């Protein structure tokens, strides 16, 4: 090992902070270039492209805000796509979170074999969405699919599932519940982190099970609910593979999700400028809605150490 030159204490301190700055930035330089290359640059490119008419073959033609005008006023599929995505996301996310939460409460018990059940509940969520899509398309099959067979057992009429324009989005939501296991695990970890003393204190005070849930468990879980709402929302608006592989946006555009429409505009019709305008609209809208979710969090998310009235 080489010997270091003797330096005074003050000198050493200055030297150290410069040393830290240099190393800190050196080590995070991949992130800096990554943010530039994979985030800032694409955002910039798509902003410029959104102002152009561009088929990716010829040079882009500047057309001002025409793409945006077309999006909002001419293209009827655009609003259909917005509606479908909003329906799926705003109906699906609450259902997913409630189901995941209830399942986590159920799994947060100490009965025999509970670990086995936890594994069974979690397992579907590790599957690729492409596999889920093929598998559920088969389960949804009106004649030979498992779901209609089960309905028949119980005497219900068969459903058209993803093949009916009324039922396609509820079917996608049902399908998403199958993969809710990772959210369940997150909730479960949260439940297990609740201090026993708090729960026992309610019991000593004579509080009921509902009391315990309403005043201890639920408030302590709000940060996790908040996290899952945000993640669920971001995932929901980006839904693509299920409609792409299962319905092709049909029947009658009833499952024309936003990203599917965007994908087709870009790669099927070579409307790159228009697709980029759509991407920017999605970007701005997600930022606004995320902002609203974050802002609202001060009203209902409880952080430890904070006094709530």
């Amino acid at each position, binding site marked *: *090992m080489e010997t*270091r030159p003797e330096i005074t204490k003050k000198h050493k301190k200055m030297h150290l902070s410069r040393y*830290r*700055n240099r*190393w*800190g*930035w050196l*080590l*995070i330089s991949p*992130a800096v270039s*990554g*943010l530039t*290359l*994979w*985030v800032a*640059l*694409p*955002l910039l*490119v*798509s902003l410029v492209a959104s102002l152009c008419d561009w088929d*990716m073959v010829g040079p882009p033609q500047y057309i001002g805000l025409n793409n945006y005008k077309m999006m909002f006023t001419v293209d009827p599929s655009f609003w259909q796509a917005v509606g479908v995505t909003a329906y799926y996301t705003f109906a699906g996310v609450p259902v997913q979170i409630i189901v995941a939460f209830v399942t986590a409460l159920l799994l947060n018990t100490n*009965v025999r074999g509970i670990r086995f*059940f936890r594994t069974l*509940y*979690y*397992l*579907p969520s*590790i*599957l*690729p969405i*492409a*596999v889920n899509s*093929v*598998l*559920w*398309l*088969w*389960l949804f099959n009106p004649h*030979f699919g498992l779901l209609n*067979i089960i309905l028949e057992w119980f005497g219900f009429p068969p459903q058209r599932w993803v093949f009916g324009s009324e039922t396609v989005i509820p079917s996608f939501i049902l399908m998403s519940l*199958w993969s809710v296991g990772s959210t369940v*695990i*997150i909730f479960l*970890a949260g439940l297990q*982190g609740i201090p026993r003393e708090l729960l026992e204190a309610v019991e000593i005070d004579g509080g009921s099970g509902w009391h315990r849930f309403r005043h201890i468990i639920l408030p302590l879980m709000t*940060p*996790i609910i908040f996290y899952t709402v*945000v993640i669920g929302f*971001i995932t929901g608006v*980006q839904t*693509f*593979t299920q409609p*792409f*592989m299962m319905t092709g946006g049909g029947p009658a555009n009833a499952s024309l999700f936003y990203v599917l429409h965007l994908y087709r505009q870009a*790669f099927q019709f070579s409307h790159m400028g228009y697709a*980029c305008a759509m*991407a920017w609209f*999605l970007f701005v809208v*997600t*930022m606004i809605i995320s902002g609203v979710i974050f802002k609202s969090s001060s009203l209902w998310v409880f952080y430890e150490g904070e006094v709530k009235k």
Partner: protein
Amino acid sequence: MLYSVLIIGALFTTMPFLWLLRSSVMNMREIFTMPPVWLPEKPQWKNFADVFTMLPFGRFFLNSGIIVALNIIGALFSNTIMAYAFARIDFRGRNIMYALCLSTLMLPQVVTLVPLVVIWKYLGGLNTFAPLTVPAFFGNAFYIFMLHQFFKTIPLEYDEAAFVDGANYLQIILNVIMPISKPALAVVAIFSFMYTWNDFFGPLLFLNEEKMYTVALGLKMLTGMYSTQWHILMAAATLVVLPLIVLFFFAQKYFIEGLTLGGLKG
């Protein structure tokens, strides 16, 4: 009472799996029998072999394997050093850069992926593995956050002791931090495996030649070509799922840890 609810839930989660397996070993006639039969007369193992002859699935598995391996290497390497810097070096601008980095978690990927196709086209990277592997070497906010949380729990004295011995930060990361962070690194490797193996949108955008396809794209191609041969589709789906299930049973605890490490304790 509790058990009956647990069992109903478990039926909902396992039935699709059983249906998948059952369909994958049937023949065409059995699949389309009315009323449905539950099990095949004789399991048709050759369905699995047929998958490989109908489409070059061997090649697709190899492609997915290469992309996954490069992503794991990239993720381990880049995220470790960056999470280390964010967690344990007190440099100027650290907090703002960390916040900026985490803010990308909120960005819908679609927004950047579509223009990235244009950018990679100009770089000549379309239809190569580059767009699907190179970004892994630049870090990922989710893994950085996860490792950051883990590194925070290691006493700073470790670094200081190594520092006094004359080690620089890279040496500290390599010789001190990485050996004691094996569980967290395993989590990163497993999640990287899972996300890359399962990715559909990325390969769809960047790969357009059959010989470059990944398993997820192969599955899509198969559904397009043999849309009524459900026994083959189910056999292919089973094969695509198999590596994940095997991995899960060997490393179950890391899957769970990853979710709880990334999900909470913020």
